[in-house]
């Protein structure tokens, strides 16, 4: 039987990806350009006995998502820049309390209200550094409607597997663009559920590292009584100020994502004609689509251009970016902000090649012509 294919907007694809992943709770607050995610789920979730709630504000939405997740639900919220700014404290809460959840950020410009109906890519640093305190972050940056579907599924998988918040960032262009989206069959995409405790309630500790860097998480109401707090905590979940325990906890919450095994699991990149490339266009989201067009045009002119497209933006693809910096004469980083990820590319390249940006914050997409011009300029 032929697979179901639908002409979906990116935001609609996101909602259907969430359902595929087993999302059973959505807590949100209306904000352009992400609202369609909430609209679709308000219709679809009750059909499967799931719960949709429109909260009183962005912070309440994030709080409801964390509360729901602690009962065992796969929980989602969707918002845009101003909403993510408001949610930041509780994103940090989900980090320290190690609660799986997914945050969709359909990016517009800024700061503040900016241009709500225009696209932007200016929340990419916020995704890593927005909440206070040391922490790890996972952020995914799909570039098409199909990929929004599959990356939303992967976001839930990573959230459940690593017990932490995972952000999916796509710009308004992909969020509101319509493309044919093929619905994967059940089982076609991997769906991961959090590890349940293998010990009984008496022996259970919510942050028991004898089970590894990602301890099993019991659901509230399943016979396990335990304590959750935003304070630094010991393995039993209760607050501690003991220096060695705080230090170990802080470091583990980063190493659970940044150890080599986890990095290999979480990283995801796409490369196009990079093998012999002398110039690398390093681009993500909708900007990568203009970049791919630019690569083809440049190749026609005999310029050996290639595209590196991170799909996982955080953790930053350090190893591969460093390799490409050594291989190429130049890296060009187009992004719809005034220079954010280019700072990371520069940090990792350590002067191995020339690096130049293409930046635009006027609410218009970066077009291939701009990228081609910059490549020619830098070579």
């Amino acid at each position, binding site marked *: 039987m032929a697979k179901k294919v639908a002409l979906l907007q990116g935001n609609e694809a996101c909602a259907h990806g969430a359902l595929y992943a087993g999302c059973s709770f959505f807590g949100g607050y209306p904000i352009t350009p992400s609202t369609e995610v909430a609209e679709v789920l308000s219709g679809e979730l009750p059909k499967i006995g799931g719960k949709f709630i429109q909260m009183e504000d962005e*912070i*309440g939405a994030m*709080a409801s998502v964390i509360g729901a997740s602690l*009962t065992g639900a796969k929980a989602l919220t969707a918002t845009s820049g101003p909403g993510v700014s408001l949610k930041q404290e509780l994103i940090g809460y989900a980090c320290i309390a190690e609660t799986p959840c997914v945050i969709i950020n359909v990016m517009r410009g800024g700061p503040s209200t900016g241009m709500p109906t225009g696209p932007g890519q200016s929340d990419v640093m916020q995704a890593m550094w927005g909440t206070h305190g040391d922490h790890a972050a996972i952020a995914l940056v799909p570039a098409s409607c199909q990929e929004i579907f599959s990356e939303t599924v992967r976001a839930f998988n990573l959230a459940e597997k690593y017990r932490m918040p995972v952000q999916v960032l796509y710009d308004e262009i992909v969020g509101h663009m319509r493309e044919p989206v093929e619905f994967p069959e059940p089982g076609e995409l991997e769906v991961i559920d959090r590890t349940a405790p293998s010990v009984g309630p008496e022996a259970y500790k919510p942050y028991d590292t004898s089970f590894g860097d990602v301890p099993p998480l019991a659901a509230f109401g399943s016979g396990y009584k335990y304590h959750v707090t935003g304070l630094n905590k010991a393995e039993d979940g209760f607050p501690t100020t003991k220096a060695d325990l705080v230090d170990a906890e802080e470091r583990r919450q980063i190493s659970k994502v940044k150890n080599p095994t986890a990095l290999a699991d979480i990283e995801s990149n796409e490369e196009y004609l990079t093998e012999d490339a002398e110039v690398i266009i390093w681009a993500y989201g909708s900007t990568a689509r203009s970049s791919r067009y630019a690569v083809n045009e440049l190749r026609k002119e005999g310029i050996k251009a290639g595209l590196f497209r991170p799909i996982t933006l955080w953790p930053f693809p350090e190893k591969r970016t460093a390799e490409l910096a050594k291989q190429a004469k130049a890296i060009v980083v187009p992004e719809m902000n005034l220079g954010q990820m280019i700072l990371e590319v520069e940090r990792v390249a350590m002067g191995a090649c020339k690096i130049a940006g293409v930046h635009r914050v006027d609410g218009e997409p970066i077009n291939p012509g701009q990228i081609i011009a910059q490549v020619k300029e830098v070579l």
Partner: protein
Amino acid sequence: MAYDYDKSIRPGKLPHIWCPGCGHGIVMKGLIRAMDTCELDRDNTAIVSGIGCASRLPGYLDACTLHTAHGRAAAFATGVKMAKPEMNVIVCGGDGDGTAIGGNHFIHACRRNIDMTYVIMNNYIYGMTGGQFSPCTPTGDKASTTPYGNPDPIFDISKLAIGAGATFVARTTAFHATQIDKLITEGIKHKGLAVIEVLDDCPTTYGRRNKFRSVVDMMKRLKDISVPVAAASKMTAEQLEGKTLTGILHQEDKPEYTAMYKEVIKRAGGAA
């Protein structure tokens, strides 16, 4: 026979952090008695709080306990209750946590009439941070940030809850220890959002600055200002000047939120 609190308290978690003379411990004991009276299964009970002295309460109790961020308890609790309506959900915290930084979540939890019991300990002050004025610090009183007297008018928490749509609202004080558990019991039994405001004392950061010579003086004040609702109906406006009504202030039957959402699920053709 002495009441056995130990079965509800987590082993090794006492002593608590509260100062000598603080009323929060009286409220905690009242909550324990109420949970027992209602025969709540603690495996299936979430106790959710925000930040502040009063919000440390859940950590001492043997249940599913969630100590959240400042002001956000009601919103976290809403997520718990929506996702798992079969759980009993109790929220607790202070006046600043609940009605200043958390005021929006508080009024909207009341409006939704979601089945939770919110025990709000009103000690008129931000105690944990050292005594700054809260929305409940009486006008003219001293706090660490009102050295010339507080210019702000106050929130009447119970009136706020009634106005926002809570379907069970009661008030008592830390002096009236046995009334605390009776009112919390009624609140837990009530289907919908129940607010139990407990007027409380903070001798350390409020009492000292406001000429209370002892905890006993503070307790005596709580006793003196309280007028049971029934008695108040026979009193004149003059007699009620400066008094606070205690007991069940408001109770009505209205559709509860998770029950309403079950109807949504039915209309969508889903199975709850």
